[in-house]
Structure formats: C-alpha cells, structure tokens
C-alpha cells in the first residue's frame, strides 16, 4: 500500500505540473504542448488497435481526418452550418467509430503486414477523396474559418486554453482506456494480439473484437480530429497524410507499446524534439532521423514496458 500511495502522489504531482506548465512556457510552447497532447490522444487510440489488439494499422490518420472534416463541415461557413461543439464533437467521434467498423469489415481475415498495407491504402484513399471531392470538401483549398469551441459565451482560442482543453481530452481518453483495458475486453484484445487462433478457441469472437478495437481506436482519432480542426481554424487534406499515421505509430513503439506514460513520453520526443531542433534549420530533420535510430537502439522496447498485471477491481 505504501508504494500505491507513492504512486498516487507521483501522478498527482505530475498532473499538477501539467496544469501549471503553460504558465511558465508562454504561448508558443503551449501551442507545441497542445500538438504533443493531440498526438498523445491519437497515440492512446492507436494503442488500442496496435498495442492491445495487435492489429498493425498504418491508416490511422483516416479517423483523425474524418473527425476533423466532420467537425469542419458542420461548424464553418462552408455549408453555413454551425452546430455547437458539445453536440458536434460526440457526433464526430461517432462518425469516426462507424468508419472504423467499416474498415474493420474487409480486413478481418488479414493478419500482420497484410493488414498494415490495407489500412495504409485505406488512409490514402480517404485523403485522396478529401482532396478530390471538391464540391463537398472544397478540395485542396481546404476549409477555412472553422468555429472554435464556444461554451457559455466563452471562446477557446488561446494556445493556453487549447492546452487545457486537450489535457481534459487526454484525461477522459485515459480514463476510458484504462477501464476497457482492465476488463474482459482488454484481455480479449491482448489474447488476440498474442495468438489469434488460441484466442478464438478461448471463446473470443474475433470478428466482434476486431471491429470493436477498430471503432474504439477510431473514436480517439475522431476526437483528436475535431479538436485539431477547431484549434487550427482551417484544415487541408494535406494535413492528413501518411506521415501522421507513421508518427503516431512511432510514438507508440518508442514510448513502449501499451503504456500511457510511454505514449506521453513518445509524443514529447516525436513532436517536441523536432521543435527543439529548429535552430539547426536544414539539418533539423537529419539530426532527428539520426536521433530516432539511436534512441531505438538504446531503448528497443520503448521507454516503458507495458503496464503489466491486472488490478483487482474495487480493492
């Protein structure tokens, strides 16, 4: 119990730190922290699919994109629709979830890297459609003047305010994630990850649990997308390219698959590090690539091992 107490204290302090952080770093870094936060959210979502269920998904950006476009189309001058965000954000999540299930359907029989390539293709298809369906999405010109979140007459538009919004989103996501993970659903996913055939013979309906994994994973992407759209104020198809999927995957692997702390640290490295390297101008990405290799070699299992063992419910 001693260590449990210490752990709580530790997380409490970390949380306090996160709350106070923007007060010390100013707008620019708050904005970057917001970026990091968005990636944390995506990381948690993809972790459901890759880390827990073991389905290698290279097209995760599709859900992010669909979340963002759903928000932008229904809260911007483009169609002159302005749905309040409290209604719209859940809708975006729902749309992403449905899309996730739809993607799940054709890929159920595929394993490993076949799945990877199909999801990659799926992500690309979504992006190309966003870019080409000009009458709906305005094509490459993007959607502009997207409504920010407004609540009780208060508008969220400062980087610091967005930071807190995203922090709240992450907290919700984490809470949700933990609940699923420490349940029969989480165990079923992990079993599926370890050995699909054996999992099926333990009574796990692969079809159902794969679809569930895809749509739960997608829901985080949808949420992230909606926040992204509202925060940036304008979005373009090019914001949803393969690189985003790859980045999120890197965050997961680097952080240590299956661990929330890992996702957070991974996001700091992958999103924050390039910012820190800005002063190197053209050499920035060169160094980043090199650092990525070095970090992986020294921490091949990621920064954190996945959190192991089950917590006893209500104890």
């Amino acid at each position: 119990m001693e260590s449990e107490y210490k752990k709580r204290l530790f997380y409490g302090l970390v949380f306090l730190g996160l709350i106070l952080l923007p007060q010390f770093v100013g707008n620019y870094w708050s904005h970057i922290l917001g970026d990091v936060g968005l990636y944390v959210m995506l990381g948690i979502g993809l972790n459901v699919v890759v880390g827990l269920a073991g389905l290698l998904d290279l097209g995760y950006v599709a859900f992010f994109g669909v979340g963002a476009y759903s928000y932008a189309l229904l809260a911007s001058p483009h169609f002159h629709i302005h749905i309040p965000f409290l209604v719209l954000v859940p809708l975006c999540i729902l749309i992403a979830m449905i899309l996730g299930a739809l993607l799940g359907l054709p890929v159920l029989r595929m394993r490993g890297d076949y799945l990877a390539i199909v999801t990659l293709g799926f992500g690309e298809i979504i992006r190309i459609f966003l870019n080409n369906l000009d009458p709906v999405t305005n094509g490459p010109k993007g959607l502009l003047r997207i409504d920010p979140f407004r609540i009780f007459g208060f508008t969220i538009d400062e980087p610091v305010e967005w930071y807190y919004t995203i922090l709240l989103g992450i907290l919700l996501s984490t809470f949700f994630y933990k609940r699923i993970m420490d349940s029969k659903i989480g165990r079923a996913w992990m079993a599926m990850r370890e050995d699909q055939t054996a999992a099926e013979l333990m009574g796990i309906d692969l079809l159902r649990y794969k679809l569930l994994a895809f749509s739960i994973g997608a829901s985080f992407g949808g949420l992230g997308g909606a926040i992204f759209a509202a925060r940036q104020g304008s979005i373009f198809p090019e914001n949803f390219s393969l690189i985003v999927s790859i980045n999120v995957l890197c965050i997961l692997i680097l952080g240590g698959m299956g661990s929330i702390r890992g996702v957070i640290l991974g996001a700091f490295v992958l999103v924050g590090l390039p910012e820190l390297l800005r002063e190197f101008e053209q050499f920035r990405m060169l160094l980043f690539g090199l650092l990525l290799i070095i970090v992986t070699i020294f921490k091949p299992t990621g920064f954190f091992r996945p959190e192991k063992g089950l917590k006893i419910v209500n104890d």
Partner: protein
Amino acid sequence: MTDRVLSIQGLTKHFGGILALNGLSFGVGREGIYSIIGPNGAGKTTLFNCISGVLRPDGGKILFQGEDITGLKGHEIVELGIARTFQNIRLFSNMTVLENVLVGMHSRLRSNFWQTISRSHYQRLEEKSALKRAYQLLDYVGLKGLEDKLATSLPYGLQRRLELARALASSPKLLLLDEPTAGMLPSESKEIAELLKRIQWEFGISILLIEHDMKVVMDVSSKIIVLDLGEKIAEGSPDEIRSDERVIQAYLGGKGKHPL
C-alpha cells in the same frame, strides 16, 4: 444417443493429397477419459482441430450433446462447452499466468460493453468472482504463487499445466487434451495422470485425450480409440487394446521390430 456427449460420424479431412481423416466415426460417453492413440501422422490432432473449429472438415458430422456443431466457428464451440489444449503449447506469452486463465474464462463472462465502461455493479461482481475462480483453478493445477509471472517464463511442464487451467476456465463439458504429458519425466507424467483423473471425477466432465505415453494412457483411460491413417483401427478397454495385434503392429511395437 443421449449417453454420448460427442459423436463423430464419418469425418473426412484432406490436405492436398494427404487424407488425414478418412470416414472416422466413434462416440464419447458422458464422463470418463477417452484416449486416442495412433502413430504419428494418424490424424489425431487433425481430429481435434475439426472438433474445436480450427479446421472445417471436408465430410462427415460432429455432434455435441446431440447438436450438430460441424463447421461452427471456434468461439461458438467453446461457448457450447468444448475446450482444448494444444500439442505445441500456445499460451498468450506476453500475458501473466493469471490473465491467461481469465482469458480462458471469457466465454463465461456475461457483462456487456456498457457495463464494462461504466463498471456496473454486476460487472464488478463478475470480475471479482472470475478472479477468485482463476486463483482456485491455478491452485488446483499446481500453479499457486505463480499468478503474476509471464506465461512464457514458466518451465515447459508448468506451461502445460497452465494450458490445462486455461481450458478448464471455460467450464467445459468436454475437454480435448493434445499430449498433455509430452516432454515430462515419468514421475511428472504420473502426476498429470492423477490430475486428469481428479479433474474428470470432480468436475464431472468428459475428457478426450491424445497421448503417446502408454503408461498414462493405460492408467487413465476408460476407453481407447486407435487411429491409423485417419481411420479407426481398434476401440476398446486398455486391456483389449494392449493385446490387439493390429495395434501392436502399427503402434505399440514390441522388442526388436519397428515399422520402418
């Protein structure tokens, strides 16, 4: 027919040119340990794969408690009450011993998605009792104290025991065991044999056992079915089988003669 928990009728399965099962028929009665023996490649594991839904048979029928389960999906069959272990151990290697057993219990947990998310009263009770039962089962097969170890870190013999506990976790009516004593010392095999008898007796279930260790087979079986080339070549009590000339020739062998 009701005295049979499982009935195999004219089961056929081939892989390319190989006929692994060739019109196989037999029945497994309620309660008791039925053993399947036969030379390597006789089709024993293939039979298990067909029963448990890993493979779809090419012909024939499988009846479980009078119900046709041929071609059902693996998870549906577990739900109905058939559990199995694997010849080449297939544990969930990056999960703990306890988690492995809990996964085995999956088909018996009823709480749905929303109950899980909301941690409803029912879900918490269910998890609690699942946990309790998992500990019991682990204790039962002799893995007490190892609950939090990763499954792969266990030595081979203990992994086999874990497979057994995991299969039992689904509260099966029929347990399919594929060589549970492979790679064990005679003394260890003996322990497993005792355990099997106990399980059969205390849980009141039927066991279908594939085993090459004749000591174990002769010790535990109420009936033995002998396969060769996908066909049944003999069926009977241990004593009958021991002295069956065909079985000796194809499988048991005697001093100085071998089939190759």
